[in-house]
C-alpha cells in the first residue's frame, strides 16, 4: 500500500521545492493560456483531437495489426512485450546481436516505466540520457518529476553545482547558456560514439507505418539518426489512425504542454536508411509494450485513460501536484494522469493511495486536450479500491477496504433509511454531538487534523421546521 499522505508533508515543508514548482507551474499555465484564447477554436480543435484518440482506443487491436504490417513493409522490425521485463529482454537482445556497448537515449517515459537504463547497466551496456533535463537527473541519480520537464524540481544553483562536480573542466556557473553549452560539448562525443539510439514515440501512424517524435533540442533527432541502430519503445496505445489525424494532435500536444504552437522538431521516421542514402540507422526496431494497458482497455469507462498524449497539462494545473511535486507520488507518472494510470497499470493493491491524492477540483479535466474524464475515473478507482466484490476490472480492487470504514458507512446507510433511527440519531447528535472528543478519537482525529470541527446546532432541522409549523409534505 502506498503512503502518499505520509510523504506529502516532507515536500510541503521544503520551501525550495515549493518555490521551484510554483514558478514553473505558473509559467507553464500562463504560456498555455495564451495559446488557447479563442474558446471556439479550442473547443473545435480539442473535439477533433479527442475523437482521433478515441478512435484509436476503440479500434486498437486492428490498428495495431495495421501498424505492424506497415512498419514491417517499411523495413522496421516490430516486437511485442506483455511486461516491462519482456520489453527489457527484447531491447537487450537486439543490442547484443548488434554488438552494441553504448547507447544514447532520447526522452521516453516508457523507458522509465521499464527502468531500462538500470537493466542495460546491469548487463554491461551504458545508456546515456541526452535530453538536457534527463541528462541532469541522470547525473543527480534521480527520477523525473514531470513527464515533459523531467528536472523541473531543480533550480539553476542546484544544476550549476551538479555540473561543476560532474563535467570536466567546467567551474561553477549559473549562466544558462554556459550550462547548456557544457552539456552540448559533453554529449556530442557520446552521440558520435554510440552504437545505438533508443527513443520513445509520440504517435505511431497506422496508415503509413510512421513513427512521430516531437522535441525541441535535437537530441531526439540525433539519437534516431546518428547511431547505426535505432530502437523505439512505445505503449500499445500511442497510435494515430491516419496521417491526417496528426495536424490536430500536433496542434494540441505542444500547446498544452509548454505553450508552444509547435515544437522545434517534428521527426517523422518511416524507414531505416535506404540504398544510396547517406545517413540514418541501418536497422530500426519498435517495441510495443502492453504492461497492463490491455487490462485498462477491457473496461469501457476506464479505457478513456488510454487516450492520453502525455502533454503534462493536467499536472501543470493540479493544485496537489504543484504543491508536492512529482517525486511525492513515488511512481513514474505523477499528477492527475499518474493518479488514474498507475493504479490501473500497477494495481490498486500497490498504488491505491494515488486516486486519493486529489481534491477532485476538475482543473485537469478542463485542460486535458483529449478530454479524458480524469475526475470520473478517480472516483471510479476510489470505489474500486473498496469494492467488496473485488471486481476484476482493476487489479487489487477491494484492497483498500477497511472494516471500520465499511461498518461506519453501513450504519450511515441504515440511519438514513430507517426514519426512527434517523430521528434518534440526529436528536442525539444535536444534544451530545459537541461533547464528542473528536480530535482525540480515531478515526475522527485523522479527519480533524486538517479540518475545523463542525458545531452541531442545538436543534435538528426537522425540529426547527416543525416549530415553524411546516408539515411533513
Amino acid at each position, binding site marked *: 500500500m502506498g503512503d502518499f499522505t505520509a510523504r506529502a508533508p516532507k515536500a510541503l515543508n521544503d520551501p525550495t521545492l515549493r518555490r521551484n514548482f510554483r514558478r*514553473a507551474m505558473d509559467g507553464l499555465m500562463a504560456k498555455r493560456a495564451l495559446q488557447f484564447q479563442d474558446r471556439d477554436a479550442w473547443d473545435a480543435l480539442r473535439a*477533433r483531437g479527442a475523437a482521433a484518440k478515441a478512435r484509436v482506443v476503440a*479500434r486498437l487491436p486492428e490498428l495495431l495489426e495495421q501498424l505492424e504490417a506497415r512498419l514491417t513493409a517499411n523495413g522496421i522490425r516490430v516486437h511485442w512485450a506483455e511486461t516491462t521485463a519482456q520489453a527489457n529482454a527484447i531491447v537487450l537482445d537486439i543490442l547484443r546481436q548488434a554488438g552494441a556497448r553504448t547507447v544514447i537515449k532520447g526522452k521516453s517515459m516508457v523507458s522509465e516505466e521499464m527502468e531500462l537504463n538500470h537493466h542495460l547497466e546491469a548487463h554491461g551496456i551504458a545508456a546515456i540520457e541526452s535530453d538536457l533535463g534527463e541528462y541532469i537527473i541522470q547525473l543527480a541519480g534521480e527520477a523525473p518529476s514531470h513527464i515533459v520537464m523531467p528536472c523541473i524540481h531543480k533550480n539553476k544553483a542546484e544544476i550549476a553545482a551538479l555540473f561543476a562536480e560532474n563535467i570536466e573542466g567546467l567551474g561553477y556557473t549559473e549562466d544558462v547558456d554556459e550550462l547548456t553549452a557544457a552539456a*552540448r560539448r559533453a554529449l556530442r562525443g557520446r552521440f558520435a560514439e554510440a552504437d545505438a539510439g533508443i527513443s520513445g514515440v509520440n504517435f505511431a501512424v497506422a496508415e503509413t507505418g510512421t513513427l512521430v517524435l516531437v522535441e525541441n533540442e535535437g537530441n531526439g533527432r540525433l539519437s534516431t539518426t546518428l547511431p547505426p541502430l535505432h530502437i523505439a519503445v512505445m505503449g500499445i496505445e500511442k497510435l494515430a489512425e491516419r496521417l491526417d489525424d496528426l495536424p490536430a494532435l500536433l496542434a494540441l500536444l505542444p500547446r498544452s504542454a509548454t505553450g*508552444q504552437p509547435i515544437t522545434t522538431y517534428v521527426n517523422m*521516421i518511416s524507414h531505416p536508411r535506404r540504398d544510396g542514402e547517406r545517413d540514418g540507422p541501418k536497422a530500426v526496431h519498435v517495441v510495443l509494450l502492453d504492461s497492463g494497458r490491455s487490462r485498462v482497455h477491457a473496461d*469501457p469507462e476506464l479505457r478513456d485513460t488510454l487516450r492520453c498524449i502525455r502533454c503534462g497539462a493536467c499536472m501543470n494545473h493540479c493544485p496537489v501536484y504543484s504543491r508536492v511535486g512529482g517525486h511525492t507520488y513515488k511512481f513514474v507518472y505523477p499528477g492527475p494522469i499518474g493518479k488514474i494510470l498507475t493504479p490501473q497499470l500497477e494495481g490498486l493493491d500497490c498504488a491505491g493511495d494515488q486516486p486519493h491524492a486529489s481534491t477532485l477540483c476538475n482543473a485537469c479535466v478542463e485542460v486535458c486536450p483529449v478530454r479524458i474524464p480524469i475526475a470520473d475515473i478517480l472516483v471510479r478507482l476510489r470505489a474500486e479500491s473498496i469494492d467488496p466484490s473485488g471486481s476484476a476490472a482493476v487489479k487489487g480492487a477491494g484492497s483498500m477496504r477497511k472494516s471500520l470504514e465499511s461498518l461506519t458507512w453501513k450504519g450511515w446507510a441504515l440511519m438514513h433509511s430507517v426514519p426512527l433511527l434517523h430521528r434518534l440519531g440526529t436528536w442525539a447528535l444535536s444534544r451530545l454531538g459537541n461533547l464528542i472528543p473528536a480530535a482525540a478519537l480515531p478515526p475522527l482525529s485523522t479527519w480533524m487534523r486538517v479540518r475545523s470541527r463542525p458545531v452541531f446546532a442545538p436543534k435538528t432541522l426537522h425540529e426547527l421546521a416543525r416549530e415553524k409549523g411546516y408539515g411533513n409534505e
Partner: protein
Amino acid sequence: MSEARANILARLRAARRGAVPDRPDWTPPAYGPDRLARFRAMLEAVHGEVIEVTSATWTERLRTLLAERGVTTAMAAPDLGLDAAWAGRGPEVVAYDRPVEAMKDRLVHDIQAGITRARAGIAETGTLVLWPDAAEPRLLSLLPPLHVALLRLGTLADNLSALMAEQNWAAGLPTNLLLISGPSKTADIEQTLAYGVHGPKELVVLVLTDL
C-alpha cells in the same frame, strides 16, 4: 515473442467494443495574402531569421551572411551550384557525398553551416518542411551550428493539414520527414530559453520570392 503478440491482441479483442466516434469538423487557420507575414512572425518569435531573396540574388546574399558569421566551411549539395556562383570568393563548400560513417568527424567538428532546400513551408506555425535525400541527408540540417534553408515562396502553405492533402503525403513518405520551426532550444533549466543545445544555434531561411 509472437506469443506476447497473440496474448495482447486476444485480450484487446475480448473487450467489449465501444462506439467509434466520427471526426468532427475542424478547420485550421488560413492567411490569404498575409501568409509570408505570418510565416515570418512565427519563425522570428522562436529566434529564426527570415530573409527575402530572389533566384538572382540568393547566392550573393548567402555568401555575405556566411561571411558575417565567419563561416569558412559550409556543406551543401553540389547541384545548388554555390562553387560556380561564388567563384572562389565564398567559404569552402563540402558535399555530403559519402555515408555518415566516413563523414562523422567532419560533420561533428568542422562544418560550420549546413545549407539545405526546404520542400515546403507552413505559415501557421512558421515551419520548414524537409524531405532529406541522398543529396541533402538528415544530419545536414542538424549537426552544423548554423542551418540555412532555401524556401520557394510558392511552396508556402497555410497549415499542415492543407499541405499534407495537397502533396498527398499518405501515398508515400520519405525515410525521414522533418518539420523544423526555429533553431534547437531547451528550457529545461528554470524555464530559461537557451539555443543550440544539440542542433543548430541559428536558423536562417532565405525565401525565394520569385519562385
